[in-house]
């Protein structure tokens, strides 16, 4: 009986496997705990009407936008010129910088402004000096100046087209260059990530393509 019970659990899990993408990912705030977005999945970030238009390239945005000023990445060997996070990256940082609550969005029935991001694995903060640079123009000129970066206009991304077409946003490298907020590579719900962890390292399905063998890093970095 015990066995059949665990089999039943497995079947339930397998049913969950059918769900994909953002469903049951860390970006799915529905459900019982804590259920910030009640029954809607998209609303913490998007709205069909009266969207927030303060950030360029922010499709039907619904989450309150961070007003923080960020410390920017800089090293002596850097050719790129990172700017203050703009476009898509500012949207990500509107939760991940920790200054705006995760549930601070238009039309939040739960009252909002309650759940701040604290998990150090997810919290980026406002000091971007220890993170890969973002919000810089990544073009053929930068690749030529650096000498160890692939030309984004001619180099295949591995996703069907060039780096520039598949991975850049208005010619800029942004958080979603590497990370897919909708986790479309996730085909197994929670277990898609949590079953794939090794004892040492846990790969994330939020990456737009597999980083096995550091293949994603080496898409741009000629090392």
């Amino acid at each position, binding site marked *: 009986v015990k066995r059949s019970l665990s089999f039943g659990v497995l079947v339930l899990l397998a049913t969950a496997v059918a769900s994909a993408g953002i469903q049951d990912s860390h970006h799915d705030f529905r459900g019982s705990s804590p259920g910030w977005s009640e029954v809607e999945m998209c609303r913490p970030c998007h709205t069909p009407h009266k969207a927030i238009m303060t950030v360029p390239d922010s499709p039907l945005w619904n989450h309150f936008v961070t007003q923080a000023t960020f410390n920017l*990445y*800089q*090293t*002596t*060997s*850097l050719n790129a010129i990172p700017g203050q996070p703009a476009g898509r990256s500012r949207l990500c940082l509107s939760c991940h910088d920790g200054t705006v609550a995760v549930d601070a969005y238009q039309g939040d029935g739960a009252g909002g402004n309650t759940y701040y991001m604290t998990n*150090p694995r997810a919290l*980026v903060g406002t000091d971007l*000096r*220890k*993170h*890969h640079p973002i919000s810089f123009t990544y073009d053929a000129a930068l690749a030529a100046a650096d000498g*160890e970066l692939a030309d984004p206009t001619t180099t295949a991304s591995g996703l069907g087209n060039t780096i520039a077409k598949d991975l850049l946003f208005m010619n800029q490298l942004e958080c979603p260059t*590497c990370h897919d907020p909708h986790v479309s590579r996730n085909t197994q719900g929670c277990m898609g990530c949590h079953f794939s*962890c*090794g*004892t*040492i*390292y*846990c*790969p994330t399905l939020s990456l737009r393509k597999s*980083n*096995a*063998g*550091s293949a994603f*890093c*080496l898409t741009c*970095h*000629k*090392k």
Partner: protein
Amino acid sequence: LRKGGLLAAMIALLGAGIGYAGIRNSKHDFSSSGGGGIWASSTVDQVCIFCHTPHRAVANDPPLWNRNNPTQSFTLYGSPTLNATPAQPTASSRACLSCHDGSIAIDAFVVGRLGPTNMMALGDVYYPGSPYGQGGPNIGENYSGNPNVNNLANDHPISFVYDQTLAAADGELRDPLNLPLPLFNTRLECATCHEVHATTTFPKMLRVSNQGSALCLTCHLK
């Protein structure tokens, strides 16, 4: 003709494969899929993470650094004819020594680890007397049976300022202005001679060929 063309294309492809240089499948590729030239992790199929992380880096010299560097003092090179002023290794060379001093395990990277390090320290694997012996990569000569040695006295000096004053004082050193090798904050570091990502095909990850001792003679006017 068709077969010949195909063969030529295959040879060209093979040639491209052989000529390709980069960290992947090099001695510095410790990923589980990297061929294990020195050592391959059994669990981590990543190349960059052993040294770099995209987030929450420990430091930015080298960029997005993901290792805790050794903090101890090293015994430095010295000789009566030395004009340079040897200094304790800077961050640039300490990054190399975070494996090559023999006291820190290769897989002791910081961000991205779920468990404790399980790789033996480099010194345990390549201790003096092993097939790799003194010529091996254990520059600091520490290993578990021989800790706290921290010996750089028998290695080419590093982390000293290499400027025109030094060249003039020594008389047998090239003027470092327009040196075809990189200095780091005017200092000679490990990376002056070695290219850590194996983007060259020269032995010992040298930046330029040392055939005819060309690399040595780049600086030494002998």
